[in-house]
């Protein structure tokens, strides 16, 4: 286990190094002058003096390699620079947005898990009835409906038409419902099909027949044998989806004015706020590696064979 953790840590360092280097180079190669974008934010043309002064202030006139050296040092010491736009430390700005994104990601995951389990289990048990057909249609819609369309549809029905839920913003539990459903529903219906297929395959396995022969109750076989085995492929998918959600769902956060990482990074990219973009990339690399590490651990908990290996 210690070796496993050390390997993962080494991977983390490598990932952060390569990703931050690549981000730095791509950002410098991409078009866009942060100084111009800041000064012309209100579509009033800036003067040359203003541009020169701001470029100087932001350190954009320095040699690129010097900037890169500074950046790599900063990346590993946790000093991720200061935002060009807000003039506040990037680490502080990102940390301020993690709770909102985590809240939405967790709620999205709950919706996704609930839909996956409810639809997956019920359609595997009633594998030939109307419920299965509904599950199939839902999966088709879930995988093909774009989240921005689903989001607006939900706002229209639940906020504008019936006034049951707030249309945007963060605050109460009610604010969380529509964004979480938008985030989790589509993937949940797709994963439900995976779970169903997986469960149907296991229901025909010999160890299930053996368990029945030994006189175990149907519920016990379903929960402790079939479901547990069928869960393995789903855990990886859920983990990957959760990692994506933790990085901030750009579309859902924009539609619902959710003040998380996704919305923040869109604005940072728009304004070419290099320190923020670079800090975000390090944070998300870390989150990705961490979540995959957690998935591996959970995998081992579910599957004793992996622990033996």
């Amino acid at each position, binding site marked *: 286990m210690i070796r496993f953790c050390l390997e993962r840590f080494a991977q983390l360092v490598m990932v952060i190094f390569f990703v931050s280097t690549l981000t730095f180079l791509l950002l410098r190669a991409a*078009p*866009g*002058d942060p100084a111009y974008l*800041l*000064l*012309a*934010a*209100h*579509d*009033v*043309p*800036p*003067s*040359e*003096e*203003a*541009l020169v002064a*701001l470029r100087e202030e932001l350190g954009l006139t320095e040699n690129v390699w010097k900037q890169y050296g500074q950046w790599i040092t900063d990346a590993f010491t946790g000093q991720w620079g200061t935002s060009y*736009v*807000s*003039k506040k430390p990037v680490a502080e700005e990102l940390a*301020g947005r993690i709770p909102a994104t985590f809240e939405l990601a967790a709620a999205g995951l*709950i919706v996704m898990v*609930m839909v996956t389990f*409810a639809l997956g*289990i*019920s359609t595997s*048990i*009633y594998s030939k009835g109307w419920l299965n057909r509904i599950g199939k249609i839902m999966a088709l819609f879930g995988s093909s409906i774009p989240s921005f369309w689903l989001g*607006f549809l939900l*706002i*229209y029905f639940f*906020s*504008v038409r019936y*006034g*049951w*839920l*707030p*249309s*945007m*913003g963060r*605050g*109460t*539990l*009610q604010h*969380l*419902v529509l964004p979480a459903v938008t985030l989790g529903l589509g993937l949940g219906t797709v994963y439900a099909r995976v779970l169903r297929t997986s469960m149907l395959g296991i229901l025909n396995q010999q160890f299930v027949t053996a368990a*029945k022969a030994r006189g175990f*109750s*149907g*519920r016990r*076989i*379903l*929960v402790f044998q079939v479901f547990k085995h069928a869960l393995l492929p789903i855990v990886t998918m859920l983990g990957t989806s959760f990692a994506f959600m933790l990085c901030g769902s750009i579309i859902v956060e*924009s*539609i*619902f*004015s959710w*003040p998380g990482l996704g919305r*923040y990074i869109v604005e940072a990219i728009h304004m070419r706020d290099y320190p923020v973009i670079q800090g975000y990339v390090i944070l998300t690399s870390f989150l990705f590696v961490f979540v995959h590490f957690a998935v591996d651990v959970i995998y081992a908990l579910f599957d004793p064979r992996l622990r033996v290996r």
Partner: protein
Amino acid sequence: MKKNTHREFTVVLWAVIAGFLLLTGCTGESEEGSAHTAADKKAVLAFPWSPASLDPHGSDSWEMMRSGTAETLVKLNEELTPVPWLAKEWKQENENTWIFQLEEGVTFHNGNAMDAASVKKSLLRSLKQGQTAKDLLQIESIEVLSENELKIVTAKPNAALIAHLADPSTIIADVASLEGEAGYPAFTGAFQIKQFTRDESLVAERYKDYWGTPALLSEITIKFIPEGTTRLMALQSGDVDAATDIPIDNIAVLEKDERFRVLTAPSLRTHMMLFNLNSPLVNNQNLRKAIDLSIPRAEIVDSIMAGYGTEAGGPFPEVLPFGKVEKKNQAESVGKWMEEEGWQLNADGIWEKQGRLFEVTMLTFPQRPELTVMAEIIQNELLEKGIKAEIRQVENIDEALANDEWDLSMYSMLTAHTGDPQYFLNIFYQSDSASNVSHYASSSLDRLIDQLNQTVDSAKRNQLALQIQEVINTDLPQSFIVYPETVFAARKAVKGFTPHPIEYYYIHSQIDVNE
């Protein structure tokens, strides 16, 4: 496996999900919307952009003005003429020296008195923090003459000083409140900042010691909703009482709904088409005229702008006293100008000269989607007139303009954001300016702009600005297409949320909510 066990398990699972959804959907009452008791009236407004910080002298100065919490020495009225605000009167001693009398009895939101010394500190900070204030004001020194009297000396004659003192970069703040982390900035407006959460909301409450007419509302909440459709739906659902910058496509929906009023204000923006005068094709004035004649302005106003705009005849919108440029009778045909330059229509109906087709590259950018649709309409019209235009969408228009690989480009600018033409003309047209994106150089125009910079009398300034626009319209470095209007909507119960060409004056002390 028993069938009823399966059913039991499925039912329990679905019941848990339904319970969860009911719990989240039905807990508590929403705190959104407006409370409307007589003594404690509140309003919730939706604006597109959130300030990144509350610093009034940085890139967020406009957002601070928009919040109704901050004020400047001078204000622009609805005719866009400078009128007293924190400065009650001013006089010019000589061409570089101005004396300002400040309002008495004004206090900042932290209770400190606003006097000449604090105004001086505030102005010096705005000059130090950013180049914009420096460019606009061109101040050499500020001197406190008495408790409420201030002398400002400019480095060179700056006839637009008074109008430029209405720019948000010159917001008057108690400088002490801007330093350190504690508390919110102290301004002088009818509302004071109560709570700010970036990208979420800014809550401003009535400032009880306000020097002017006290605010009718006890509290205003501004929600920052960048997505236009979400802003519209927030209004329709009752989450907000008013919303600005309603997408034109959605206006019809609100007009049909009797709960809302759709309000429009002429903006100070001009949508235009730039010509690259370094391009061998369009550096010819007659060819530019041919292209200009092909722009279907009336159709653009009717279709793309849905009537929420007016045809443009110059860089400055008609709402400005110097924006009423006389439009020339454009009876000439495209063919006349093309033939005069030796071009002939070929068998395909495209203009050709010495084997070279008249093909131009037109840039557009995604940040203003209406410009791309305009570009497509213009492209069709040009093709009908025998000119081929290839549209190239670029992510960053200003960077693309800096390279010379373009002939025409869609563009949009606020041309007189302080109600004065001087800043824009200097930045956009002076031959040596870096922001002269059309590479247009005219020594006679430079001289006229210099003359404008030195002229104080407003009637003479307006006349000069008109004269300058005549030169621009003759030389045609740009084709001006349309002056768009700002559209916003409010519940009918909201009073006083009225249109103003200056977008940062929407919130004021006389906004009210009467159910």
